[in-house]
């Protein structure tokens, strides 16, 4: 069944499209980009070998349209489609469609995607495979009394979650019996309007859990491996912000246990390809959360500590190759940290910031990897997720990785739009973060007022000086002959003339 893939359509945009195109290049596979109206000069289009227009800017009219993706794949003769993350990556209909069209879908089987995509089904599978789950229950449709009974058994506070959920939608913490009914109803309504599926279930609420996930790789020959964990506890509104590997709480023994659990559900779900099994971790115990049936945003931290290229492995698995290494051959070296750099304004509640990148310079040097979806003069469009790049940094130790991340953040230059670079600097300086004392409530506990603007007085003073000189220079340039100020003007002109001839530092 092994079939060499020669051409891959990358059904995505931004940094993940760039990432996949790079893997294709490394394997001498032709990479085909698709682009919407506003992405015509995007970086992924420039890097690809071929590029096809697939419609207007809104993703519902371009990157999400199955027919268009399939049409381009047929037209250009692609053997395979790599969906990246988001868009069509976890859509079982699309995976089915590819199968019907005899195009390799680089990901798990449609059936696996479908089953693991339903949180209630996934929870059942996890229980069958012997994974620990948070105490909780499927509470059926509208049966409030049974639900209340279950909630009492579990003990308040409980978490109400949508079966079809994701990204925090349809999720509610219920602290006491009084608010239970109303919360249940609201969550079900939210779930119906967001996912068209009102089923909800309840779980014991953990107050300070860590989010720890296990990367898995499974081939078509019955090999199920895990590549260790990533800690992704630093989240804002259920979106990961900083990820790292290994987790500061990890021990070889715990890793073996969590890895085994991840491999067990992979086996149970007949998993093929790269995937992530997410867990909550608190007080020494871990609980199954969900399986993401695709490449994760944060996959590079695993690549850096294991030395394994996950996208290349996905492609090899899709070609039908057996994995080229065993569980014992996977080793971990050093520490890697990823910062998701967004075009958002941390001073204004992380509102997305759109516009042209008037200046853009990525950091570099020892330990630094930048997976950027943009280059200088690109526009950040309004239509998609505003992530502009992932800064991924490796160090021999966690401390070195943090220091190098700080350095790289300081080197980063983004102007034209606001970015979360300064926000990440604040996190890198946070004492609890540096001590590895993390939980998913880290940000709300440490920054209850959402105030990430912890500027040093020294920096403030220098910024004041910079602004004063800028105003001085600008106004002198505009007022070329200010009334009654001839001397100053001539000095200024002299300066300009001499600046071309003499040294910057002068003769001091």
């Amino acid at each position, binding site marked *: 069944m092994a079939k060499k893939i020669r051409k891959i359509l990358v059904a995505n945009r931004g940094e993940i499209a760039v990432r996949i195109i790079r893997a294709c290049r490394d394997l001498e596979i032709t990479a085909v980009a698709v682009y919407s109206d506003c992405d015509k000069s995007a970086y992924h289009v420039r890097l690809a070998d071929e590029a096809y227009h697939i419609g207007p800017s809104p993703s519902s009219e371009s990157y999400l349209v199955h027919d268009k993706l399939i049409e381009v794949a047929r037209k250009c003769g692609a053997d395979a489609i790599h969906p990246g993350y988001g868009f069509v990556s976890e859509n079982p209909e699309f995976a089915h469609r590819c199968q019907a069209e005899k195009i390799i879908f680089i990901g798990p089987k449609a059936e696996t995607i479908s089953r693991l995509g339903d949180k209630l089904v996934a929870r059942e599978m996890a229980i069958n495979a012997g994974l620990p789950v948070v105490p909780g229950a499927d509470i059926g449709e509208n049966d409030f009394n049974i639900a209340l009974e279950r909630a009492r058994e579990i003990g308040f506070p409980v978490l109400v979650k949508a079966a079809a959920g994701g990204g925090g939608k349809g999720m509610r913490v219920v602290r006491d019996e009084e608010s239970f009914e109303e919360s249940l109803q609201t969550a079900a309504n939210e779930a119906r309007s967001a996912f068209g599926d009102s089923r909800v279930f309840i779980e014991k609420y953990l107050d300070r859990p860590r989010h720890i996930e296990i990367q898995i790789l499974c081939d078509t020959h019955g090999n199920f491996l895990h590549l260790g964990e990533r800690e992704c506890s630093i989240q804002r509104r259920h979106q990961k912000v900083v990820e790292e590997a290994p987790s500061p709480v990890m021990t070889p023994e715990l890793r073996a246990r969590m890895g085994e659990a991840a491999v067990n559900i992979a086996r149970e779900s007949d998993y093929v390809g790269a995937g992530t099994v997410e867990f909550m971790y608190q007080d020494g115990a871990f609980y199954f959360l969900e399986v993401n049936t695709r490449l994760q945003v944060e996959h590079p931290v695993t690549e850096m500590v294991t030395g394994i290229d996950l996208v290349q492995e996905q492609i090899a698995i899709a070609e039908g190759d057996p994995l080229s290494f065993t569980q014992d051959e996977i080793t971990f070296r050093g520490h890697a940290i990823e910062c998701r750099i967004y075009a958002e304004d941390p001073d204004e509640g992380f509102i*997305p910031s759109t516009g042209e990148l008037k200046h853009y310079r990525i950091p570099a040097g020892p330990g630094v990897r930048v997976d950027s979806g943009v280059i200088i003069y690109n526009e950040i469009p309004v*239509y998609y997720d505003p992530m502009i790049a992932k800064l991924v940094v490796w160090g021999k130790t966690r401390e070195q990785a943090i220091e190098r991340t700080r350095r790289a953040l*300081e080197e980063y230059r983004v102007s034209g739009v606001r970015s979360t670079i300064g926000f990440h600097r604040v996190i890198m300086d946070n004492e609890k973060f540096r001590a590895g004392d993390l939980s998913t409530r880290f940000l709300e506990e440490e920054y209850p007022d959402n105030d990430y603007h912890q500027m040093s007085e020294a920096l403030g003073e220098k910024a*004041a000086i*910079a602004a*004063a000189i*800028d105003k001085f220079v600008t106004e002198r340039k505009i007022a070329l002959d200010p009334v009654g100020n001839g001397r100053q003007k001539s000095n200024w002109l002299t300066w300009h003339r001499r600046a071309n001839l003499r040294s910057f*530092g002068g003769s001091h």
Partner: protein
Amino acid sequence: MARYTVTVDGREYDITVEYRSEHYRMTVNGREVEVYREDLQRGRSLLLIDNTSHEVDIRYNGGDNERIVFMQGTDVPLQIEEYNLAQLRKTAGMAAGGAKETMIAAPMPGLVVDVRVAVGDNVKKNQPLAVIEAMKMENILKARTDGTVKAVHATKGQSVDKGDKLIELE
């Protein structure tokens, strides 16, 4: 010689600038500072402030007096005024840049999913005023100063373009 009042993070700097052979002689709250400046492309500059090196990017941020200074990986928002005007303003008992902050406009195209205030409400700085959904994210618009709601132009469910006026404070 020029004299400015710069307000950063609630701290105020009294700064004078004078151009002397190839460098700038400044005082910052009375302390002398020597600065060399090298123009870089596209509005950026390289400053040596007492020989410390800084690559700086300055852009306007709303009103005439508002700037964002990007340096050391950090966006620093600040207000800069002519010293004399700042003195007048202070005599009048106003906060720096206060007059500019009363109009809340849509920072991006999107859908108004919530309006949390009504005309006449008293609001505190940072109080949520409205919520706009864009890029699949809900974005909360907050008051930049204390004030009273003078007008509400936004309604729930409305599509707005970047720059549309949503809420006016006074």
